[in-house]
């Protein structure tokens, strides 16, 4: 009974608007639970995926979350290796976002495989070649993703240890402090691992499918790494900005946003030029090599417009982040955040969802795919749980050290 009282008090400590948001989130999580059981116990037949369209909305979730979570390794790399100290106020939030993105990538992957209980086969019978070079890109994904997730767990520990109740104990405080000091080693290892799985899950997995005109490109591995650095950093700015807006406080100093925006903008220049080269090489070299015509792969105006939208979205953050006038206005800067994140998500949709719909035989048409309610709620449930975890961390841990420097805030959270 005491526990229920505690939960009631906890819930009532939120503002009315936040309570409504919590109701919605809990409802989504409850539906997630129901549909998760249905899918796990009775099979993937409840999804709209089929033998032609082997992966659907969950793979967009996987690739999107990993690419956006990739901002964690890139921001950590700049802070701990290049010592860009202005990024310090955002790093805790970045580590948490990275950890959640990877956790839910693993959760979505478990839903996506037909035999989740055999997931350990990826470690027990890995498809290695000579010199421990993975033959299957998915073997590389298995190993790098799980190892990097462990690293993110270690990186998250000092933040959790700073929780007020735990921080009172000198031992816990000392552990947290020294772990924080040693974090550069984790950042370095994380960068190394993240480089590989960003490349393999985001790009290499598709780039090696040599029989498929829509995917085969040997450089696709590297494009995905650049995409993660560009889009991930935008995501790492977007979420703290939203949190700050809801809390009506400055959670991250403006200079931090400006510094990270400059880094992200430069990465978007690299990414956009690389993507344009990628599309060009597809059109003149790789698609003709598979005896297809580039224009036919897009299924008419719809696909071409998606491609155009992706490129337009890529140019928005470049302008907003790198022109001083736009960067220092909140509205234009946020437009940049949103466009940057959307550019990466639209690119994943163009490559994957569109790639699966392309017909394999001349006499077939494009395949349509419409996610079922089960797919939507498993996907949305993951996002809802991520939001709840983020809210808990904002309230109980020093996720935004800047906030604690300026005032000791404990009330009026999200």
């Amino acid at each position, binding site marked *: 009974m005491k526990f229920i009282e505690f939960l009631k008090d906890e819930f009532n400590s939120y503002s009315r608007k936040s309570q409504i948001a919590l109701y919605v989130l809990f409802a989504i999580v409850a539906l997630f639970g129901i549909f998760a059981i249905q899918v796990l116990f009775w099979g993937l037949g409840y999804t709209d995926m089929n033998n032609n369209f082997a992966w659907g909305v969950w793979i967009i979730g996987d690739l999107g979350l990993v690419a956006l979570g990739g901002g964690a390794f890139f921001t950590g790399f700049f802070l701990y290796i290049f010592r860009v100290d202005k990024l310090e106020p955002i790093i805790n939030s970045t580590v948490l976002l990275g950890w959640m993105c990877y956790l839910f990538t693993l959760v979505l992957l478990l839903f996506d495989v037909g035999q989740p209980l055999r997931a350990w*086969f990826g470690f027990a019978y890995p498809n290695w070649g000579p010199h421990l070079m993975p033959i299957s890109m998915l*073997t590389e994904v298995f190993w790098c993703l799980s190892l990097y997730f462990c690293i993110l767990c270690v990186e998250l520990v000092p933040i959790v240890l700073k929780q007020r109740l735990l921080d009172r104990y000198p031992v816990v405080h000392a552990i947290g402090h020294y772990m924080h000091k040693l974090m550069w080693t984790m950042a370095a290892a994380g960068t190394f691992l993240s480089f590989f799985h960003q490349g393999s899950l985001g790009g290499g997995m598709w780039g090696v499918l040599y*029989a*498929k005109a829509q995917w085969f490109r040997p450089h696709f591995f590297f494009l995905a790494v650049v995409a993660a650095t560009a889009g991930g950093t935008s995501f790492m700015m977007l979420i703290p900005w939203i949190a700050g807006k809801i809390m009506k406080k400055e959670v991250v100093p403006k200079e931090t946003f400006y510094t990270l925006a400059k880094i992200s903008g430069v990465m978007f220049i690299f990414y956009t030029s690389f993507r344009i080269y990628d599309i060009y090489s597809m059109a003149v070299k790789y698609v003709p090599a598979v005896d297809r015509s580039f224009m036919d792969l897009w299924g008419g105006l719809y696909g071409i417009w998606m491609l155009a939208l992706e490129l337009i979205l890529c140019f928005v953050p470049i302008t907003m982040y790198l022109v001083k006038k736009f960067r220092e206005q909140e509205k234009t800067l946020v437009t940049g955040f949103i466009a940057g994140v959307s550019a990466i998500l639209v690119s994943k949709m163009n490559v994957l969802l569109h790639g699966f719909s392309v017909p*394999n035989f001349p006499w077939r048409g494009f395949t349509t795919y419409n996610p079922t309610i089960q797919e939507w709620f498993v996907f949305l449930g993951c996002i809802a749980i991520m939001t709840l975890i983020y809210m808990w961390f904002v309230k109980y841990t020093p996720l935004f050290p800047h906030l604690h420097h300026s005032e000791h805030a404990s009330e009026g959270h999200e």
Partner: protein
Amino acid sequence: MTTMKRLWGMSIDLDKCTGCGACQISCMQENNMPIFEDDSDIPKRVTFMDLMRVTNDYQGDKKYGEVQIAYVPKMCQQCSGNNPDPNKAVPPCVSVCPAVATDVSDDGVVSQIWSRCIGCRYCQAACPYEARVFNWWKPKYETDFKNSLNPDVSVASRGTVVKCTFCSHIWKRERDKMIAQGITDINQVQYTPACVSACPTGAMKFGDLRDPNSPVYEQKLKNDPRAVRLLHKIDNADPAEQQRRMKIKNYPNPKVYYLTSKQWLRDILSGFQNS
């Protein structure tokens, strides 16, 4: 121990095929295909062999009287990549498997172990022929069907990818028979997959691609003007061009040949026209 000399392959004469579907039925019976409540749900159906109905009117531009149709039995094409040597073969699906559930045998057959498969479906994404199928539902065998299951083929569980293996279990059975007779030379063993033995018109032929006496001798098929391989337009290029393109990338290089004297059918089977 003898070295494997066989390289199994198939030829299907589409001019002889009547589209009766006996190959598909015998394949399903031989390989313990489940029967689902709704087998009209074709994109989720579990079958190794797909009898495709192909027409020259797929763009809707043919007039009355010009429309022609053909039936194309399509199973796993047992690709090998640019290098036909089975020990160096790289079919599109084999290298991608994260758990080594699928592999190429030394006789060139692309095999799959259902019980090793984790159901990630990466091989399905890699296959250009849509030859791999996934058990979206739990396979069901109603009442009497259970008694007629083939003990040589393992029953797949829900959430695994399955595929045609050129009925390699029959080959293993024949091999055991030969060994019982005291013949240990593996190259003496011949066999016929279920679909080929069920074909009433003799349209399907199976044998060793390397054996000049076999009905599917590869050199003969390659020079046959009636032969075409599915979605493999590179076959039409001259050898120098083939060499140049094979430096850029691998090509599936399948072991199933389709034979037809109809030009429209050869065109449509070889791949997309407007490239």
